[in-house]
């Protein structure tokens, strides 16, 4: 479901998913509508912050990255084109890339060992999720991740949730590069089949 152009906001939130609603709001935000931005903030700040936090881990840094991303939504909303994908996808892609940039520059800056030490004591992905209100989507994704082979799951989550490049993933899993690339693609494809493709 994709909204083209700016409709009135009166009917928003009734009978449509957050995804379609975000599309519509982002178009309004591109026109300088600050109230639409506030509404959009309500829809996407949780997913943006949660994703950044998942990748960056450190709460203060996560908040900083999330702030940069949310401000960038306001600033760059005009770049969003509803004809080329969903707003949610655009927003979360942006958030993920910023989070990964941060985590990699932190690693490059020599905080690596410190982070590894921190991470060693952290629970696995499915337990971290329990920190926050359990959503249906989270439950589905968790279940579907568990249906992947171990290598598919590790390849996908080490890259996406931990911000490792596929070369680093290959190193950590002692696998050839080509195998990791294939596991990533197969993992994502199986995830899609399991989730039913609907965003």
């Amino acid at each position, binding site marked *: 479901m994709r909204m*083209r*152009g700016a409709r009135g906001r009166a009917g928003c939130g009734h009978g449509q998913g957050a995804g379609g609603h975000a599309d519509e709001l982002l178009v309004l935000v*591109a026109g300088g509508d*600050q109230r639409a*931005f506030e509404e959009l*903030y309500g829809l996407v*700040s*949780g*997913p943006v*912050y*949660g*994703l950044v*936090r998942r990748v960056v881990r450190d709460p203060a840094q996560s*908040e*900083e990255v999330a*702030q*940069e991303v*949310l*401000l960038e939504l*306001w*600033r*760059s909303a*005009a770049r969003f*084109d509803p004809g*080329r*994908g969903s707003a*949610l*996808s*655009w927003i979360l*892609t*942006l958030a*993920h*890339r910023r989070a990964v*940039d941060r985590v990699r520059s932190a690693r490059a800056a020599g905080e690596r060992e410190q982070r590894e030490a921190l991470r060693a004591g952290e629970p696995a992905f499915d337990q971290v*999720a329990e*920190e*926050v*209100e359990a959503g249906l*989507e989270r439950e*589905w*994704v968790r279940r579907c991740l568990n249906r992947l082979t171990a290598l598919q799951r590790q390849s*996908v989550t080490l*890259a*996406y949730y931990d911000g490792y*490049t*596929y070369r680093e993933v290959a190193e950590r899993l002692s696998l*050839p*590069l*080509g*195998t*990791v*690339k294939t596991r990533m*693609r197969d*993992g*994502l*494809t199986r*995830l*899609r089949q399991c*989730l039913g493709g609907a*965003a």
Partner: protein
Amino acid sequence: MSILGKLLRGEDPHSLAAPYALDALEPAERRRFEKHLAGCDRCAAEVRDLAEDAVRLAYSAAAPAPAALRDRVLAAVRATPQEPARSGNRAAAQEQAPARERARRLPPHVWGTQPPPGRARTRGRPLFAPFATATAAAALVVASLFAVQAHRTEDRLTAEQARAREIAHVLAAPDARAASSEDGRGRSIGVIASASERVAVVTLSGYGTPPGGRVHQLWLMRPRVQPRSLGLLAGDTPLVAKGLDTSSTSLAVTVEPDGGSATPSGQPIVQLTLKSVGFGE
């Protein structure tokens, strides 16, 4: 490395679609793949699908954002100009877009994470959304920050990210306030400062580069003390000054010989009081 791995290494760039959708490429590889994507419809479609799958992973990580984040973001939004929209009618604007630009359009995974083609040239004069006078300086600083980012090269990326982080930190201070001053010729100085954090972000706009290899040097003026150098200003690039004495009364910019001076050698070309941003008590 196995023989299979070696065989796969020189291979067809299509295989990078999944690592790309997961943001698992190194910067150089990412750029090469994006180049490839621009001319490969099949890959673009595949990347788009894979990116939507990745977004499901993202969405499932949702967690409530801290309440304070909302206030800060909404405050920053009021002070931040937007990039100009193409036109009221997006579809029409796309029809009119130059063919070169259309050809370079990338899938959703790509656009928005890099400046659109040709945008950097017009970035210096953003269409400012209406905002209160008090926040004009913040807008000035934020606008020049993003202008700088638009021109960034890979080498400068880390330094700029570090600065962006510092600026975000200043903006995030609960007592962050902004001030600016513009002369009759459209040249201005802007500051966002936090007295509690003793930090300020200073931007000079429209002054260009002094002739003869000389430089703009920023000074902190304090009562009964020699001016303290805060560093050299490079064009419109924001300067982050830390450890500021809260009794400081104003900022001043002078033109100095290459490398700067220990004390100001001439009259300031511009000065800005810090009283309205909580200093000088």
